[in-house]
């Protein structure tokens, strides 16, 4: 890491000041990694995030291991109560057991562990893809606004204001059903893809403005730097300057924003699914599971059913948030270097 080699050119004091005056280059990620490794909270949250990701990715394997799948219902009177509270899992099936690792769902008797794992797949996919959409849109539009200035900047900036000024939840709530009906006849809108695609598009399109504003500000100062002038002086095209000179220099900021946007989008997916405009039964997602617990008033008689997706959601969002904070601290150029 710190092997600052200064070959040739004897008698220069420049090497010592080199690192201090500009942002670090390739070593940016290496430095960040070093700092993350040194912080216990960062390391712990990273481990949790990785574990949750693996849990979601390996959902088919894990549910096969447990011998259940997320869609098969089992309403036989051996599993679900038939008399007092119809549909409530009997004591042996409500809580974790060797046959159902997290018990079964009330009402339909589906395996909770399998639904949690597959639901995680859906929730995380939506969160990651919508973050990716926001990040790409925000970076490109923000960089274009900052770099080209003038009318381009005016149009994009007003667009940012527009997107930032609208009450998100309200707009998303009203737009999602419209978008879903529009998508229904396209390849994106087939089966369980429909709610996922619509949520990715909606969340993605409503998350770019803030990042775009940050990127625009950075680019405004970057475009005056001499290396951009140098690129102009040998005739690089605007696109080449934008993508080769400017955008690589805002990736630090973008990365920090992206890690903070992921948990926001996880909770947004949960909120929308909970409110009934997102993922719908039988497709599982953590939000949909919360919705199911609330919809049949099951949370009163079977609080475990509410706790499983709820705790999962809290742990995931918390871990991503802490990781985001750690990444921000790690990439902060003003923080002291070790």
């Amino acid at each position, binding site marked *: 890491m710190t092997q600052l080699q200064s070959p040739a*050119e004897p008698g220069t004091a*420049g090497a010592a000041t*080199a690192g201090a005056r*500009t942002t*670090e*280059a390739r070593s940016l990620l290496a430095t960040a990694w070093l700092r993350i490794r040194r912080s216990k909270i960062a390391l712990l949250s990273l481990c949790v995030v990785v574990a949750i990701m693996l849990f979601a990715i390996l959902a088919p394997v894990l549910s096969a291991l447990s011998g259940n799948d997320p869609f098969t219902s089992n309403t036989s009177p051996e599993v679900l109560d038939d008399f007092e509270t119809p549909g409530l899992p009997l004591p042996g099936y409500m809580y974790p057991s060797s046959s159902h690792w997290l018990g079964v769902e009330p009402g339909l008797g589906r395996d909770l562990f399998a639904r949690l794992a597959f639901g995680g797949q859906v929730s995380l996919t939506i969160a990651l893809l919508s973050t990716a959409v926001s990040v790409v849109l925000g970076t490109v539009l923000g960089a274009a606004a900052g770099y080209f200035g003038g009318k381009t900047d005016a149009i994009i900036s007003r667009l940012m204001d527009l997107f930032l000024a609208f009450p998100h939840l309200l707009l998303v709530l009203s737009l999602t059903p419209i978008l879903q009906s529009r998508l229904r006849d396209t390849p994106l809108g087939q089966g369980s893809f429909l709610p996922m695609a619509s949520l990715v598009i909606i969340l993605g399109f409503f998350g770019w403005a803030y990042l775009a504003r940050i990127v625009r500000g950075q680019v405004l100062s970057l475009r005056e730097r001499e290396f951009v002038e*140098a690129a102009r*002086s*040998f005739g690089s095209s605007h696109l080449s300057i934008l993508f080769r000179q400017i955008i690589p220099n805002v990736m630090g900021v973008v990365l920090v924003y992206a890690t903070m946007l992921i948990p926001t989008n996880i909770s947004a997916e949960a909120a929308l699914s909970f409110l009934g405009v997102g993922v719908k039964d039988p497709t599982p997602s953590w939000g949909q599971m919360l919705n199911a617990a609330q919809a049949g008033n099951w949370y009163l008689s079977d609080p475990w059913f509410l706790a499983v997706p709820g705790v999962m959601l809290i742990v995931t969002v918390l871990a991503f948030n802490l990781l985001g904070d750690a990444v921000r601290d790690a990439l902060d150029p003003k923080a002291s270097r070790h």
Partner: protein
Amino acid sequence: MEQHAILQVENLQKHFPIKSGLLAPGGKRTVKAVDGVSFSLERGKTLGLVGESGCGKSTTGRMIARLMDPTAGRIMVDGVDISQLRGKDLYHFRRKVQMIFQDPFASLNPRQSIGTAIAAPMVAQKITPPGGLKNRVKELLEQVGLKAEHYNRFPHEFSGGQRQRVGIARAISLNPSVIVCDEPVSALDVSVQAQVVNLLQEIQQDTGVSYIFIAHDLSVVRHISDEVAVMYLGKMVEQGSRDELFAGPRHPYTRALLSAVPLPDPRQARAQEKIRLRGDLPSPANPPSGCVFRTRCPLFGTLGEEQRQLCIDVVPAPAVAGSPACHHTALAGPLAAGVQ
């Protein structure tokens, strides 16, 4: 001489409009950053462009490299006026004039390897050198005194002097006819300055490139330049061959500049005439009438009423070789005696 000139600048001007807002009504005023500058540069020679900060020397350099569009005037490169080029023509012109920047820390993209940075001009101009891009970059690295294995290193791994060498390699990669060096050594340590200046001279001998060498350090300019041009507040006040200008400066401003050069020998330094300019550089948004230098001119105070009025009312003719932009050059002799 005309046919040898690789670069001819005629009456070059750059005016920046001052934006007037609601709270600061200013009408349509302009800052005349460069106001009627003319000079010519021969193939394989170096023109030193000197003057204090804000005198328009960098703006002049930037216009020649077409990083800024001139307001008026002509820039003839190899007999072709490039001051108004657009689009494809401008793109092709860029091979001919390259630039070396002042700050070796800001002029290289921190996220780009040295090899990529040096190859960038050839990539942008879609040039594939014989033997391949990578080999050419390695050749260039060695030509500027770096090593071929530095190809994959990043700017922060280098010292200021080494980075400036990278900047030089990048500038010469297109085999330009003219390189505008915008204070290329002023950010470097003195010991490194000499190495970089010598490198620039070696490259000139090898390739026959011409330099516009913008600097405020007169000893460096004296070392590298064939011709010297002195600017003050957007105007050319004096120009001439290096030896003439350093031996017998005729414009009071040039005299003041030269008298400020520190001498290594203290005895010599004590004997040296010291002309101290009073006051600050006037705002280029509101320059003095007539001769722009009159507000700080050491000669102005010694003049009679009528001579002063001439300075206030009449703009002196722009300097050409051997004829400074001053109404009272003939009085330069008495000035020297008077100040000592």
